[in-house]
């Protein structure tokens, strides 16, 4: 069954072109509008109420990027997110594979366990993690923040690999073993090449999860680890809208590019369906 058949055989019931047109306008306004607004704020100069657009423009906030707090925060966030994506993927791959091999009630227990760190409110999760990390001397350090970011990241990515391995044809593994492959050879020459696409997607996902973390960074970092979300938050609260808009754009661009890359990669996934 193809999508085009659906489009021609079953046009949407009820509302016609007018409703579609209205909804499209609403979508343009609500999806593109806020992002355009961020861009305008970031280059605005004088912009008093009730002007719809700035009366003066300035690149001062962008020029200040290299000298003020946003630049170092960008580097900190980037480093944390890259490491969280890579390490999170390395941890989640075997965990997700182990979960995917569960059957019956055990599989539901496994899925619940993986979803818990994803659904737990970051602040509530952070207060517990803070105590543990403080007790081992990692409170207020970048390493502690990274470990905290890994908790939801590994949860998300384990669920991701649980889905991936559920679709994976386990017979490939069995055949490799029958042909005498050791576990290491099977991973090196069979599984990893076949999972190249999902692994790339998982690293990107892990990056994005760490990139946007606010509460865990605040609680575990104790304000000493100045990642980009913390700086943007401080700027918004301080009413420094132009600098905050620059920071917000910096926070938005990598995830948008990441989403586009994920959608592109999804079309090239090489997992053999069962």
């Amino acid at each position, binding site marked *: *069954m193809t*999508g085009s058949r*659906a*489009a021609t*055989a*079953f046009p*949407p*019931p*009820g*509302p016609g072109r007018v*409703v*579609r047109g209205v*909804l499209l306008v609403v*979508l*343009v306004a*609500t*999806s*593109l*509008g806020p992002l355009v*607004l961020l861009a305008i704020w970031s280059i605005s100069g004088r912009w008093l*109420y*009730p002007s*719809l657009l700035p009366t003066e423009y300035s690149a001062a906030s962008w020029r200040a990027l290299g000298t003020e707090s946003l630049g170092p925060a960008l580097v900190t966030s980037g480093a944390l997110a890259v490491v969280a994506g890579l390490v999170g993927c390395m941890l989640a791959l075997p*965990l997700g594979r*182990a979960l995917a*091999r569960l*059957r019956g009630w*055990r*599989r*539901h*227990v496994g*899925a*619940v*366990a*993986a*979803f*818990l*760190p994803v*659904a*737990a*409110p970051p602040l*509530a*999760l952070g*207060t*517990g993690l803070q*105590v543990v990390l403080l007790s081992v001397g990692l409170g207020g350090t970048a390493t502690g923040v990274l470990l905290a970011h890994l908790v939801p990241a590994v*949860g998300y990515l384990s669920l991701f690999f649980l889905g991936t391995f*559920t679709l994976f044809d386990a017979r490939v593994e069995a055949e490799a073993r029958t042909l005498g492959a050791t576990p290491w050879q099977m991973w090196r020459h069979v599984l990893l090449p076949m999972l190249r696409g999902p692994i790339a997607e998982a690293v990107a996902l892990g990056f994005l999860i760490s*990139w*946007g973390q606010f*509460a865990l960074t605040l609680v575990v970092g104790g304000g000493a680890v100045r990642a980009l*979300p913390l700086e*943007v*938050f401080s700027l918004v609260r301080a009413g420094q809208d132009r600098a905050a*808009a620059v920071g917000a754009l910096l*926070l*938005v661009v990598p995830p*948008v590019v*990441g*989403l586009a890359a994920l959608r592109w990669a999804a079309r090239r996934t090489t997992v053999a369906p069962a």
Partner: protein
Amino acid sequence: MSIFMRLRRGSDADLMGLGAGLVLATPVLVGIGYAAAASLGVAGPGASEAGVERIERVLTESATWRGLGLTLWVAALATALATAGAVLVAVLFRGVGWLDRVARGLAVLPLPVPHLVAGALGVWVLGQSGEISRVLAAVGAVRMPAEVPALVYDRWGLGLALTMAWKESAFLAVIATALLATRSLDVEEAARTLGAGPVHTFVRITWPILWRGLLPAVIAVFVFVAGSYEAAMLLAPSDPLLLPLLVADRASDPDLGRRGDAYVVSLLLLGIAVLAVVAHEWTRARWEPLDP
């Protein structure tokens, strides 16, 4: 038969899988355990003898229950609005034409926007001198910001609910679109062949498929909104405080003896999350068993 005896009868794969689950759940379980110990007064700030005074004090405070009520209200409103938006997009733009593809792409755009940026956008768009207010001023509907209804720090959390609905509708739109693309075509075709009209087909076929398939994601969105902190910090009212804000407020109380109260509120939040996780898995398993 005990769970251990059943496990012993299971394979190595079961043991490894459940071990993986334990590894993943441990940080949350430690958090729950510590919060429980701190709630009983045996750990955390102001710890002394075990007792239920902290729990009693927090559970008898009106701030706790009003905060819980506002948290559930904002989460429910945001989830309902996000679901409605996602269903509209999925149903009205399900074709393969360029317009449908553009609309679906636009609907997904807020998905990668971090919650903090969504909150900041909420301030800049919904605030009394924000973009909506400027548009209203431009068309002569208002003359000054004070004439615009307050949607930032408003007592009903409407600005926060609208912002979170915008952010989370993208996630639900992805799932609703995928559901209609993969699950409904054969059944709809059969219904139409048997003479059902478009509205009848939607009510009896499309909507039930959408709703059952979306329910786990709807539960996930509810718990994400309920636990959201950064957007709430920027948009939510200061009285009553949403539960995540109440945790932060109690944790920084000038009275050190009261800082432990944060853990009781934290337990409430974690309890909501655990209930939601179980409900999520239960609804998902009914619709799509994980076993291949």
